[in-house]
């Protein structure tokens, strides 16, 4: 109907003097944008299907293509923007909730960009990491309250189980189902090579990836997909997912069309059926119930593995984290409101939750005030975009970070934010075999290793600049940060001074 006509957001500019009509763009586009006009022998495009993923642009051998934002517009209106108007048309036509993927794209403050890092000058000289040892090794887990000695005075090892990271960055939970087999293969191989961890998400663990178990975090979420004793024991740690930054307070839904034979086997549900993760765990209504689940996985794994509890950053995150720290969890993962997702209701993704920077600062502060910071490690995510975000996170009190979107970008993601369609032209957020094979796991792993190796170098350079040679000395060291353009309230929450102070 005319009501529902939405002008395409992007236009495909094809340079006719360059296009050889080789039809590669047509073969590459799973959305079916390009086709050949058989009469004229020229290539045409249906822009209404274009998601701006740049697959055709990147592969066009003649460099004949570019994607531009359309200049077609509604009458300009700062309140009723074109985006708002089209969303209303879409909902009026369908009666459905708006669905989106990847992280919150709206222009909220990014506090990482309002924090500046210190460096040494003259006194307390800086350190050259290329010449001197620089420690970024990280242990995640509860730390004992006291040292114990036996009757002869020898130290008794009372250290609870720890995750040992060569660098303080892990790959965040992305299920097999939301991303492809090849994407998981790349993450698993890269985590192993880098000495860090990837996370299964709530999708079970494919039998092929059990050999990477010592570098795998296995997740238990409300749907309990693929969870059984061998799965729990396969990983190096177990993550109980209570919430996700992109969709705090709601569950997940993997549509049946994505549940093919391999996903079915891994999630342990019939092919073609919807995989629904309910919003809450129906056995958790309190911190005491959470404690019960934490200790159930500890019993199932004989107290050999640390347990992570993952929550979304929400208003009362500090009080919630304080409860979790008393639940027996060894690590708390906090996911900020910019965290990514394979699919979430747009209104929730864009309007629920709080920035990770503020959540991290208030949780770290609260746990210190209560004298229980040693009981848990803090892992933050949503979104860590660079090594400078990483340095700032650690200085605000994080023990390590999770990266999801950054890792997918390394694998070729172009942030077209159309994961929910399952037609990812880069072979990441899809289960279609012809698309999945476009992502070479070895190449993907190499690119992930490159990314984190370069971040590790940058981290060491910034630490060296501050005269710090161990990540431990940076952790929670807010004196190394200054705010820029922040109100006194924001500075108070972040626990940092303003630049110039």
């Amino acid at each position: 109907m005319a009501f529902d006509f939405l002008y395409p957001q992007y236009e495909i500019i094809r340079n006719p003097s360059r296009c050889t009509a080789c039809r590669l763009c047509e073969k590459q586009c799973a959305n079916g944008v390009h086709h050949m006009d058989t009469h004229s022998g020229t290539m045409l495009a249906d822009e209404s299907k274009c998601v701006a993923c740049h697959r055709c642009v990147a592969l066009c051998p003649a460099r004949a293509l570019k994607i531009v934002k359309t200049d077609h517009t509604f009458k300009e209106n700062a309140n009723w923007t074109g985006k708002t108007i089209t969303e209303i048309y879409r909902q009026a036509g369908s009666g459905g909730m708006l669905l989106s993927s990847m992280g919150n794209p709206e222009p909220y403050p990014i506090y990482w960009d309002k924090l500046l890092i210190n460096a040494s000058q003259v006194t307390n000289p800086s350190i050259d990491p290329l010449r001197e040892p620089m420690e970024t090794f990280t242990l995640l887990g509860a730390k004992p309250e006291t040292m114990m000695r036996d009757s002869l005075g020898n130290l008794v090892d009372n250290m609870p189980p720890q995750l040992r990271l060569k660098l303080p960055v892990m790959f965040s939970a992305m299920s097999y189902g939301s991303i492809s087999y090849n994407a998981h293969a790349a993450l698993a191989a890269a985590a192993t090579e880098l000495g860090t961890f990837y996370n299964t998400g709530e999708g079970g663990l494919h039998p092929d990836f059990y050999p990477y178990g010592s570098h795998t975090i296995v997740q238990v979420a409300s749907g309990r997909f693929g969870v059984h004793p061998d799965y729990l024991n396969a990983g190096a740690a177990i993550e109980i997912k209570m919430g996700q930054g992109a969709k705090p307070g709601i569950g997940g839904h993997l549509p049946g069309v994505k549940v093919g034979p391999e996903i079915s086997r891994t999630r342990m549900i019939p092919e073609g059926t919807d995989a629904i993760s309910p919003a809450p765990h129906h056995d958790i209504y309190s911190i005491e119930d959470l404690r019960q689940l934490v200790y159930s996985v500890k019993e199932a794994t004989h107290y050999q593995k640390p347990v992570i509890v993952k929550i979304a950053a929400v208003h009362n995150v500090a009080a919630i984290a304080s409860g979790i720290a008393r639940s027996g969890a060894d690590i708390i993962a906090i996911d900020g409101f910019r965290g990514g997702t394979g699919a979430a209701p747009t209104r929730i993704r864009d309007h629920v939750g709080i920035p990770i920077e503020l959540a991290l600062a208030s949780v770290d502060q609260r746990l210190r005030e209560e004298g229980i910071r040693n009981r848990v490690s803090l892992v933050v995510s949503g979104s860590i975009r660079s090594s400078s975000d990483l340095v700032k996170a650690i200085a605000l009190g994080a023990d390590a970070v999770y990266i999801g979107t950054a890792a997918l970008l390394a694998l070729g993601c172009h942030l077209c934010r159309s994961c929910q369609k399952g037609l990812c032209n880069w072979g990441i957020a899809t289960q279609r075999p012809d698309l999945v094979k476009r992502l070479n796991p070895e190449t993907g792993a190499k690119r992930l290793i490159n990314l984190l190796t370069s971040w590790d170098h940058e981290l060491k350079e910034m630490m060296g600049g501050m005269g710090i040679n161990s990540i431990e000395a940076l952790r929670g060291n807010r004196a190394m940060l200054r705010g820029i353009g922040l109100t006194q309230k924001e500075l108070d929450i972040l626990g940092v001074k303003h630049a110039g102070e």
Partner: protein
Amino acid sequence: MRINAFGMYYRKLNETIRACSDHNIVIDHLCGQRYIACAEKDRLFTLRGTPGNGLAQYMDGATVEVFGNCQEAVGDTMNSGEIIIHGHCGDACAYGMRGGRILIEGNVGYRAGVHMKAHLDHQPVLIVGGTAGSFLGEYLAGGLIAVLGIGAKGAYPCRYFCGTGMHGGKIILRCDKKPEALPPQVLVSLASADDLSELAPHVEAYCHHFGHDVQTLMAQTYYVLTPNPEASYKRLYTFE
């Protein structure tokens, strides 16, 4: 091995069980100790008293027979095996259960069989002899739940919100009148011959353990709850 659990903390009790290689484990005087038979494979547990929360959680092949009542989260995320309860059972029983069978002689509390799911030869079965509390079979994705309503005199043997969000599996309820006011995700019909033959072996097992008459039980009126395909989750969303 026979253990007297009187006054024993659950950590010590479970360590003792794990350290023992015996096939048959008998525990007496249980009083709320948690996680008995958690993640256990292929052993036989005979329990007397009241085992605590998380009995047989993640269990994968063992058999647990309880002479007494059970508390919460029995058979949570259970993968295979069997639990036989000579008594009543608390809340959140069989949450996320994927395989095996739980037989409860008496009643079960709130949130039983939430998000049970099936896969190939994993077909979870929850049989409740008496009645069930609210939220029975919420988000049910697979498997079979049956409430036999013994002692309910033919009345609807559940409470509120039975089968909310159900998208797979089957719930069989013994009651004289068609259940009403069920959530939109649920379709109700009289049990067919196929439904009854699916139920029969489990009723036989129930009677074998708890001593009722199979034929009398099977001759009663049963209604079947199945997911309503019209109410699937797909229709919830719109996107570019």
